[in-house]
Structures are given as C-alpha cells and as structure tokens.
C-alpha cells in the first residue's frame, strides 16, 4: 500500500487541498525568530569587522600562536619556583583565599538586608526598583576600577581590595537573594500576616528558612568567583596574594616556568572550589 492511499483510507472528511504550485513555508517568521536571527547576524558582522580592522601592532599572529603553544607546554610540563619558595606560595594562596572569604562574608551580610527590600513581595515597588537600579550601577563599574578608586582613599592593599571587591559581591548577591525571595508563595506570607506576625517575624520564620539552601548555594558560588577576582586584583591592583606573585613572574622576572607553578596552585584551588560548589548544590538539592 502506498502511503498516500493509506492516509486517504482513514480520513473521513475531505482534506483541504493545497495547490501544489504554492510553496509551503514550514517556519513562519515571528518576532522572536527575527530578533534571534538579527542578533546572530549582528554578532557575526561585528566579529568580522573586528578581525578586519584590528591593529595588531606588528605582532605576527602565527608566530604568536606558536609561541603561546610552546609557552603553555613549558608552563605545564616544566613548572618551577625560583623567586620564592613553596611555603611562600602556599601562604600567598591562603591570603588570596582570605581576601575572597572576607569579601564574600561582608557582601553576603549587606546583601541579605538590601535584598529583603529589593524583593517585590516583601517591599514596595518603588524601593525595590531603586535598590535594583543601584545594584545594576555597581555591576556596571568593573571590579578593578572599584578597587583602584578605593585605593586612592585607603592606599593600595587589602583594605581597598576587600572593600572594592565587596561592592560587586553585594550587587551580585542582591540579585540572587531577592529573586529566590520572590519565588516564595504569596499564600505563605498572607497566612502569617493573617495570624498577626510582624514583617521581621515573617522574614526570619518564613522567608529566610524557605530560601536558605538557595542562599547558601549562591553565596558559595560567589566565593568561587571571588577567588578568581582576588587573583586578578592581586595582579592588577596590588591587592597581594598569589595574583601578585604571578604578576611579578610575568612582568618583572619574565619567568614562564614560575607562571606555570603559580597556575597549578590556582588551578588546584579553583577546581577544588568548583567541585565543592557542585557538591553543595547536589546536597542541598538546589538547581541553579
């Protein structure tokens, strides 16, 4: 039996006949698909334009690539420490972790309070918009600039680094916390209100307990990010720690093998933190 016949056989009503000359469009253009394609096209065009206009300043692209490949090989296969000792490096890693930890703790404490006012179901619309706008502004200034701006007032060092980095943590965590607060069922808040509970009671007895696993996961993820940021600030803003040693190896000693050793330190900690974050998320059954 031919397919067509088979279909005719079970069709009880007569079919709408499509004249074969008219082509059938199987994917109608919607606004969504137009915007999607437009975005793709713009990205590709801008990329092409960049490659066309980039001013590489007499750097040979191919030689650079080959050089990098060689450097990466040396870095990973022959790492060594010559300008400082293993225990010094370990101590510097602890400093970087310390900077990340302080930043995360301060950021989390401040963000908890601000995000209560940023969550629309706990606060007024106006206050929420103001706080979220403030957070968006903080995020728009790169962390390194916050650190350098504070460095003018407090001097280069851990104080400027921690305060500057805390700004970004606050804004990141406000967004994360307030969104998880907003997911809380309206009915729960209403039920407690009906029983005469005060705002702070509702916050501490219902809102925070029901979002605590999300908050812990987000906070730890921020700690993971802050470690990387602290490495970068050590290099670019004199915050100290392992990042500064990497900067010295790169810009003063020109020692690619020492960079390799430092990179191993950073990699081990970073991957450890990533695994830990995944474990915490799994343990708390949080999917973010």
């Amino acid at each position, binding site marked *: 039996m031919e397919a067509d016949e088979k279909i005719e056989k079970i069709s009880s009503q007569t079919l709408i006949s499509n004249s074969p000359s008219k082509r059938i469009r199987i994917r109608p253009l919607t606004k969504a698909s137009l915007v999607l394609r437009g975005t793709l096209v713009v990205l590709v065009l801008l990329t092409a334009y960049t490659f066309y206009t980039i001013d590489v300043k007499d750097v040979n692209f191919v030689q650079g690539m080959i050089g990098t490949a060689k450097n990466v090989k040396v870095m990973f296969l022959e790492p060594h420490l010559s300008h400082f000792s293993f225990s010094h490096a370990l101590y510097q890693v602890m400093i970087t972790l310390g900077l990340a930890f302080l930043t995360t703790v301060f950021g989390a404490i401040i963000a908890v309070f601000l995000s209560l006012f940023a969550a629309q179901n706990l606060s007024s619309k106006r206050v929420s918009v103001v706080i979220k706008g403030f957070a968006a502004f903080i995020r728009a200034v790169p962390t390194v600039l916050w650190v350098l701006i504070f460095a003018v007032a*407090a001097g280069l060092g851990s104080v400027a680094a921690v*305060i500057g980095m805390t700004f970004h943590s606050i804004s990141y965590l406000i967004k994360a916390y307030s969104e998880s607060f907003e997911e809380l069922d309206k009915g729960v808040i209403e039920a407690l209100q009906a029983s005469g509970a005060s705002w702070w009671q509702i916050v501490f007895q219902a809102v925070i307990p029901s979002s605590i696993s999300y908050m812990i996961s987000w906070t730890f993820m921020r700690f993971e990010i802050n470690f990387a940021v602290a490495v970068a600030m050590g290099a670019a803003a004199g915050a100290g720690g392992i990042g500064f040693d990497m900067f010295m190896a790169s810009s003063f000693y020109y020692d690619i093998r020492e960079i390799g050793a430092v*990179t191993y330190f950073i990699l081990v900690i970073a991957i450890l933190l990533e695994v830990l974050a995944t474990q915490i998320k799994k343990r708390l059954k949080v999917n973010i």
Partner: protein
Amino acid sequence: MIWVKSMQADIFKKKKLNTAVFILLVCFVTFIAATITEFSIAKGIASVPKAIQWSFSNFYPTKESLTKLPDILDKMKETLLISIAATTVAALLAMIFAIFGSTATRVNAFFGGICRGIATVFRNIDTAAWAMILLFSFGQSPLTGYFALFFGSFGFLTRAFVETIDEVSSSSVEALKATGASYFTIIFQSVIPSCIPQIISWVLFMVETNIRSATLVGLLAGSGIGFAFDLYYKSLNYHTASLVVIVIVVSILFIELISNYVRRVIL
C-alpha cells in the same frame, strides 16, 4: 505527651545549636582571614566615607577632560569589538566541545570526558591569568586581550552549553534517533533549534562579562579602555579617569539594555 514535648525541645535546641556553631565558625574564619590579609575592619569602614568624599571633590569630569572624549570613545570601541569577537568565536568552539561533551549528544563517554576536562582547565584559569601568560608571546597588543578573553569564555561557555543541551534536548534527540536520522541531522534539527535561545542568552551574558574583564585585561596588557584608565589614573589625572569610568558604565548599561530586550523576546 511529655515525650513529644521533650523531643520538640530537642529539635529546636539542635537547630539553634547548629546555627550558633555555624555563626561562630564564620566569625572565627573571618578573624583568621583578616589577620593573614592584614585587613582591619575599622580601617575598611572608615575608608568608605573617605572615598565618597574624595570622589565628590576630585572624581568628576571637567570641561578640560572632555577634550579627551573622542580618544576615550575610540578605545571603548576597540574594547567592545574585541569582547564581542572573542565571545563569538569562543561560542562557536564551545558549541562543538559541548556537543561532544554532553551526555545527550556525545559520541562516546571517554571522548566526552576529555572535552569537558579541557573546558574545566580553561575555565579555572582566570582571564587575568591568561593575559599574563599571553603577554609573553603577543606582548602589549590587542591580541593578548583578545585571546585572554577567548580562552576564559571558551571554558565558561562550554560548561553552560553542556548544561543547556543536557537539560533541553535529550528527549527530542531520542525521538529523532528512532526515526533513523543521522548524527549531524539530529544535531542540526533538534539540538541546535531547541538550545539556540539559551545559547544566545549565554553569549550575551558572556559579552557583558567580557567587557568588564576587558577593562582589567587592558590594564595588564596595555590596550583598550583599561589602558586609557590606567594612563590617566597613574598620571593622577582623575578628572579624565572619571570620564573613562562614565564611558564604561554607560556602555555596559547600554549593552545590558539590548541583551535584556533580546532575552525577553527570544526566551
């Protein structure tokens, strides 16, 4: 009844004890961290009003600094373009690695593990670290910034894409396999169409992140807007430096506006 009561009391006690232990532990670690980093909380708190005061008296653009605006805009354009180009090319490579790395679409488990492993290494070396590594071969050129952003984005996007593919497309992959479609047909007809909105969303997020990182990389690699800021900052020309910050903020907010719009429409 008495038994129930005492058990309830126990639960409350235990919860309170846990919270107390947790808070004490955080305080203890904070204390240790503050000691080894030589951070003083008092100094930290004092620095905030000091910084605000300083900003209001020094950190604003003047008429004179506005003459530098065309230069600054030019550097900003360079940084924006490099961030976008690095992200786009990284996304392409990340897509390939993600397809081979996802459980839904991988060719085999061993090869999939290798793909994800490579991405893990790239992701966990920060962009700034990449910049310092690349300085050796490319020197102070935009290419250093380009590749630093490229490597970092590649690692991050691979992980994001793997999660997207796992989440979105494993069921339709099964359906197309059952119709007898070939591997690449399945990828192009099912995986890519179902993931593309999320993928674009991740790419836009990465562009935003990269513009911020580009400032940092520019400081280290001597190019783009980061270099401009460094120049004025180090020569104590704070008025012009503040103009650089304003240009960066406006650019980032503008890009965020566009990508939020795109996200709202396509997701």
